[in-house]
């Protein structure tokens, strides 16, 4: 017990023995996973492995049937709702790019800034120079400065992915959960995204879920392979991709 506790307190994210089932289907099955502060981790796994459900659990969208989910070593995430978890400093990018399509790129980022999110605060909000500067900086990082006035809905798929990452940056969370950031991107865009994530990782802990093995390889980080709701293998990309069970799962029996 004592050993586990030490692990728990030092980790940025700590999942242990987590179970979730929907109508008898075990989506997450005794899942245990630890993410150290400052780490970037890639999560791979076939469809239905429970990757997105895991993210749902971490961000409070789904409550686990049992198990421990700790953030920053102390906070029990299973007791909190999405808003509170976001306020604690966990940002999430969805599998399908989800931006506010009827608002401008700039407004999207403005909404994401981690300033006062209360009703009163937003009602009486007046822009500040610091905020503008931050938005400016993020716009540059995600290369959307020229598109700042465009409706987010009119962006290309790749741009939307970036805008969403940009929103994560504006949110400035301690932990970023990034779900399939390069789905539908060109090779160039994929490469740029990998660079971007590495850049982000300098100041943030990042968890990336991705299918694209080239991309994962490019990230060059520790990889966890999920299958049927639990961890199948963990290690470098080479270790994992040579793991027999992983091959079996991916290629079918």
């Amino acid at each position, binding site marked *: 017990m004592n050993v586990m506790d030490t692990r728990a307190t030092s980790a940025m994210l700590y999942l242990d023995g987590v179970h979730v089932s*929907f*109508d008898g*289907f075990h*989506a997450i099955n005794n899942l245990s996973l630890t993410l150290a502060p400052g780490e970037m981790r890639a999560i791979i796994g076939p469809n239905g492995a429970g990757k*997105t*459900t895991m993210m*749902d659990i971490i961000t409070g969208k789904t409550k686990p049937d049992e198990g421990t989910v700790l953030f920053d070593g102390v906070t029990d995430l299973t007791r909190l709702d999405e808003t509170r978890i976001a306020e604690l400093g966990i940002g999430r990018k969805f599998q399908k790019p989800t931006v506010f399509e009827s608002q401008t790129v700039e407004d999207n980022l403005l909404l994401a800034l981690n300033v006062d999110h209360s009703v009163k605060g937003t009602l009486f909000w007046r822009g500040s120079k610091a905020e503008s500067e931050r938005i400016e900086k993020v716009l540059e990082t995600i290369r959307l400065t020229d598109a700042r006035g465009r409706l987010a809905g009119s962006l290309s798929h790749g741009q939307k992915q970036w805008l969403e990452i940009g929103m994560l940056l504006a949110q400035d969370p301690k932990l970023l959960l990034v779900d399939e950031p390069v789905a539908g991107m060109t090779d160039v865009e994929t490469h740029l995204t990998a660079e971007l994530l590495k850049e982000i990782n300098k100041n943030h802990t990042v968890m990336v879920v991705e299918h694209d093995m080239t991309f994962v390889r490019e990230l060059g980080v520790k990889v966890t392979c999920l299958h049927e709701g639990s961890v199948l293998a963990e290690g470098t990309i080479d270790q994992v991709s040579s793991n027999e069970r992983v091959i079996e799962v991916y290629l079918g029996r």
Partner: protein
Amino acid sequence: MLANLPARLCALALSLFLIAFALPAFAGPFEDAVAKFANDDFSDTDEAIGVVASSGNKLAFPIISALQDGRLMADPDSKKVYVVGADGKSIDAATGEPVASVPDSASAVRLNNRLRRSVDAALGSLTLQSPDLAVRLQAAQSVFKSHEETALEAVDGALAKETNKSVKVALGEARAAILLFKSDATEVEKLEAVATLKARGDQEALALLTGMGDQPASVTKAAASAIGSIQSSLAVWSTVQNAWYGLSLGSVLLLAAIGLAITFGVMGVINMAHGEMVMLGAYTTFVVQEVIRTRYPALFDYSLLIAVPLAFLVSGAIGVLIERSIIRFLYGRPLETLLATWGLSLVLQQAVRTMFGPTNREVGNPSWMSGAFELGQITITYNRLWILCFTLAVFAILLAMLRYTALGLEMRAVTQNRRMAASMGIATSRVDALTFGLGSGIAGIAGVALSQIDNVSPNLGQSYIIDSFMVVVFGGVGNLWGTLVGAFTLGIANKFLEPVAGAVLGKIAILVLIILFIQKRPRGLFALKGRAVEA
């Protein structure tokens, strides 16, 4: 069995009438009494009934049964009274002699409720020994109801000869009822009567016991205990009765909601014109019955069977039309569908109002849907029972259809993943139209059933639409079983609340409970869980 009663009575009347025909008439107070029928005065008629019934004259039965059926004609000018036989031949009521024709100035002797009771009582004692079982039973029951002392002799006579068990019981009860109110009956007789009534144990027995007036102390005491035991058994039965009412209300709710469960639950289309589909089904029934009434009256009992497929086709076809012309442009915009279909419901209502007029139209109950039977101490009406069976049958067929037919499979495929289904070669737009048509068609069928218990007016649909939505939302969208459980839960809850809180407060309470329930389970009773829902 009881359904043929009038026919049997007619036959009996005819046979007795033929006997009477052969006998010569004799003068006396009987003729004076008969002449009173011509006065068109309710008190005189009442008096005449009493005298005729107790006269012992062979004409008494034909006269009184003719009076009951409106076949006793009286001529106010000549004061002559005629009995028109069921075969159209007439006799002079006073003499029994045949007459060629009844004068034009004669009109049927009128009755009111008081007189109808007198007629029943008179006929009761006159037919206690009829050869026909059903008539005897009916007679015994009439005597029980009227419990007039004069009938005691006839009851005793009939009791001695009776062989049928149920008629015997009925006669025994009639006798008990008479004795209970007979002032000079012995205490033993009265105690026996109380015991008989206690054994009968229903509302009417209770009525007699509570209303029996001054009695010897022992009888009063026995009656009090009998009342107590009847009341406690009735209390149990009333719970059963409430449950039955709940089931019945639930079946009506389910029937109205089931089509909506398809269009709203399966397709996600909020069809505010759903109620109007129900209304169209009801009007189809009306049209079918009109045609049958004017052309093929013999088929009346089959009118609903004919109306069901027609209503399905009419509402279904209109449903397909609506889907093709309006709703298909609005997929993915459920709330706009709501607005467009609301407009549509206004148009349909006004269209029906223009075509059929604003007033209620008469839709009759076929004989097999009329009346009621007793189950223990509760009354079960045939129309409610058939509607319950019908609803369950529709539900089962629908479920089977979704599960086992190609269309059902396609429907489920399209619901779950439209793009995938389309890429697999399913003509999604055809499936959409058919699904909507199916939902509307079922609403039409519901209209056939609802026409049996409710108004057939342009407003018919309006009264069901909110309830239907509540049922579907309460049960859980996208789940037919949820709709079933939701409908019966709401029906039963409503019927158990109604006696306590009254109809209005009961309904308000149900609505508040639904609102609170949705807070607890935002997606209804049987919500789908997991990621699929959110996607």
